């Protein structure tokens, strides 16, 4: 594993993203608009379970939206270039790490706007942030692969959602459980087994994505 090359891929992704500021700004507007709409339509949320569910649904849509972009920009020529220069394992790992960073940041942003407009109910902030962090890393593992698959199948947006929603289900249920514990302010010892499952899922997802991407890569 060549770390320098991995760094290069991640750096390249960031450069591309920041050069085209419109996509990043688009995501930001998307986050604010969805959170604002839900704040307006719900007015005031009193039940923690509703607060929690709404947050994760919003977050899931945002994350799928971001991830669907990660392979769509790969044109035929670029694909050939990547194919010649990188090995598939490094390439997908680079994409996953880049998506991880992006999603972790955006999850914090979403949480920020959400607690601003809708109000925060979280009692155990540390637990909530840990849940948010690990679920966004696992999401990025799943969604990077799904985006690669969708991009091979004519790149349509609905396919991305159809493919990834059912596969994300186990992940999102564990995350919802964890964040519910954080909202209720339960002791950490109650949540350990869910946290362990979430971290294990991270490993499984990333390992599978790196192994399987090898086969998607060749045209």
């Amino acid at each position: 594993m060549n770390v320098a090359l991995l760094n290069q891929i991640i750096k390249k992704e960031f450069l591309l993203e920041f050069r085209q500021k419109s996509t990043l700004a688009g995501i930001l507007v998307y986050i604010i608009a969805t959170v604002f709409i839900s704040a307006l339509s719900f007015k005031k949320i009193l039940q923690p379970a509703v607060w929690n569910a709404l947050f994760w649904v919003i977050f899931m849509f945002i994350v799928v939206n971001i991830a669907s972009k990660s392979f769509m920009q790969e044109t035929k020529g670029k694909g050939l270039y990547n194919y010649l220069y990188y090995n598939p394992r490094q390439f997908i790992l680079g994409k996953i790490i880049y998506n991880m960073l992006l999603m972790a940041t955006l999850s914090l942003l979403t949480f920020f706007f959400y607690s601003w407009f809708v109000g925060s109910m979280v009692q155990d902030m540390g637990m909530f942030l840990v849940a948010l962090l690990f679920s966004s890393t696992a999401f990025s593992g799943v969604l990077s692969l799904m985006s690669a698959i969708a991009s091979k199948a004519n790149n349509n947006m609905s396919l991305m959602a159809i493919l990834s929603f059912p596969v994300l289900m186990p992940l999102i249920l564990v995350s919802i459980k964890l964040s519910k514990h954080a909202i209720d302010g339960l002791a950490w010892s109650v949540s350990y087994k869910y946290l362990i499952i979430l971290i294990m899922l991270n490993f499984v997802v990333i390992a599978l994505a790196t192994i399987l991407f090898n086969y998607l890569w060749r045209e």
Partner: protein
Amino acid sequence: MIKWWKILSALLIFYTLTWGMLNSVPRLDILNETIRNVYYHVPIWFAMIFQMGYSVVYAIKHLSKNDVQSDIISNQAAQTGLFFSIPGLLTGSMWAKFTWGTWWTFEDPKLNGVAIAMLIYLAYFILRSSIIDELKRARIAAVYNIFAFVMMFVFIMILPRLTDSLHPGNGGNPAFAKYDLDSNMRMVFYPAVIGWVLFSLWILDIKKRLATLSYSKNNEE
């Protein structure tokens, strides 16, 4: 040529359908006579999981060998598995109505798991239909198949063990092994499992032959 295991599967299913209704079962609260559903509901799920596992094995085979035949088998096994999920769901729903008092409950992680598993395989077929090139379709579908199976496995096998479930053997409910200890029930349950799994293989065999024929016919033209 008629294969022996096809006859065996028909005989076993016939035996479990009749003897399952006639033999004596333990009298238990709430379950009462519905415990006989163990002979039909559970083996059908076993057949479904078996077919989906079969599909994944051939998906892996396809990725390593790149042959068309493995892809055909993988696809047909996934279809057979999805087909078996329908009677599995219906028998389960009936059972739930008479024991838990409702056709469907979102409280039970296994029920949710099954619904998600069906969605996953529907997504698999949509993915297949959206790619035209044959080899490309086979490879991409195989990748999705493997990934989806692992996630489904987590959902059906691991998550229910963590949370409360209404199903026996999960969340503090007694496992069926306890009821199964009744040797009368074992005499029907195990043959039923073998019978339904063989029956699913029979369906797969026919579907496989049909798909192979239509594939070679298409390639001739």
